[in-house]
């Protein structure tokens, strides 16, 4: 417990968290501080490329083992399964309609790559290694949850024509970039990494700071302008679902025998909720679902929770579970 607090304290005072807080505060105070859309997109391209490439290069360095395939399978299963858990909770805890609940559930089965990146930074800061292929696990967890949500809605009776939706989801820019740069990193390995290291490694933390500043601004603006008015139980869901997700992720990770770092990251992936790929898919696939509910929950509640308290908890738990001290 003391360890978690220390870790949480350290985490809260890291530049990236403080940058997020700055953005949040600025937006809530109605400052006109803003990051241009093109710059925000440019930074997200940079982060996805860097994280994918580094993961691929790490796999190239360590060789592919059975662990990779098992971890990917675990990720796919989790992404399919978590929405059912979330949906059940939402329907019993909150007054959300079937469609709104399914849409929210899709977000929690999928992942937040920035939360993943932030967790990677914390692990690096503590010198805890993780399997390089966890990036690939992140990529495969983006999409399956969307199918589960559609299944949940279809069960409820409203069938819908979804020509080309699946292709659109799998070819989503962030998935393609993450998988593509992972493969490039795996192919070019240490040589490739050496060539572009001073681009994707050294300035990474700094770019992450500015990116989180922007995330804070967007989250704050969302909280301020949202007409949703989340019910109290919905907020409670946004704070407990990450813990439940992390627990299920821990279970899966222990079964397949991940290292401390890998376990922590699988917990983070399971705990985090999407706010890029899934919202866009929902606008196409479940337009009746209210976007301000799922956006506010995912970006305004769960993302800050994971960033500040969640990550330290998951890292501490992973250490305890794998017998590694902090």
């Amino acid at each position, binding site marked *: 417990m003391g360890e978690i607090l220390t870790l949480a304290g350290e985490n809260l005072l890291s530049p990236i968290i403080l940058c997020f807080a700055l953005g949040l505060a600025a937006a809530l105070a109605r400052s006109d501080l*803003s*990051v*241009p*859309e093109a710059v*925000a*997109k440019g930074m*997200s391209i940079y982060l996805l490329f860097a994280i994918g490439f580094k993961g691929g290069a790490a796999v190239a360095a360590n060789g592919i083992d059975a662990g990779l395939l098992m971890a990917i399978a675990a990720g796919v299963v989790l992404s399919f399964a978590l929405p059912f858990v979330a949906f059940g909770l939402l329907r019993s805890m909150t007054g959300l309609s079937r469609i709104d609940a399914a849409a929210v559930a899709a977000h929690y089965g999928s992942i937040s790559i920035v939360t993943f990146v932030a967790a990677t930074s914390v692990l690096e800061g503590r010198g805890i290694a993780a399997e390089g292929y966890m990036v690939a696990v992140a990529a495969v967890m983006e999409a399956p949850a969307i199918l589960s949500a559609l299944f949940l809605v279809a069960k409820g009776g409203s069938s819908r024509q979804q020509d080309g939706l699946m292709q659109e989801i799998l070819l989503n*820019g*962030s998935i393609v970039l993450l998988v593509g740069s992972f493969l490039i990193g795996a192919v070019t390995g240490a040589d490739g990494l050496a060539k572009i290291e001073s681009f994707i490694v050294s300035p990474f933390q700094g770019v992450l700071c500015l990116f989180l500043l*922007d995330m804070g*601004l*967007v989250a704050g*603006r969302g909280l301020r*302008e*949202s*007409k949703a008015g989340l019910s109290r139980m919905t907020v409670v869901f946004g704070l407990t679902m990450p813990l439940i997700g992390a627990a299920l992720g821990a279970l899966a990770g222990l079964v397949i025998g991940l290292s401390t770092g890998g376990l922590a990251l699988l917990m983070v992936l399971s705990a985090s909720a999407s*706010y*890029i*790929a899934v*919202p*866009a*898919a929902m*606008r*196409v696939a479940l*337009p*009746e679902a*209210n*976007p*301000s509910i799922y956006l506010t929950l995912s970006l305004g509640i769960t993302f800050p929770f994971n960033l500040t308290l969640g990550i330290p908890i998951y890292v501490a738990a992973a250490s305890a579970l794998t017998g590694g001290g902090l």
Partner: protein
Amino acid sequence: METHNAKRVEIVIEAPLERRLTDALEEAGVTGFTILPVQGGSGRSGRWSREGQIGRSGMVSVVCLIRPDRLDSLLDAAFTVVERHIGVVSVTDAQVLRAERF
């Protein structure tokens, strides 16, 4: 300068649906359209702004100049996409140069 009657149709629609809408327009035989970026807005679902957003969020404005007699098929095509989604469709009378293009 000689001008010809036309309709100017403006469809403001969510960005993730842009491709569906333009595919539907092309299928309906629309020969041309122009897509303008939208920076923000307000409606029943509240205010929004594109600033700092990542992902295909926000809305776009698709402008279509068309011969008056083809308006209905265009609106039908647009409506199949807009119907269940957030979007606003408006039509104005216009004059165009070089009618052979429309």
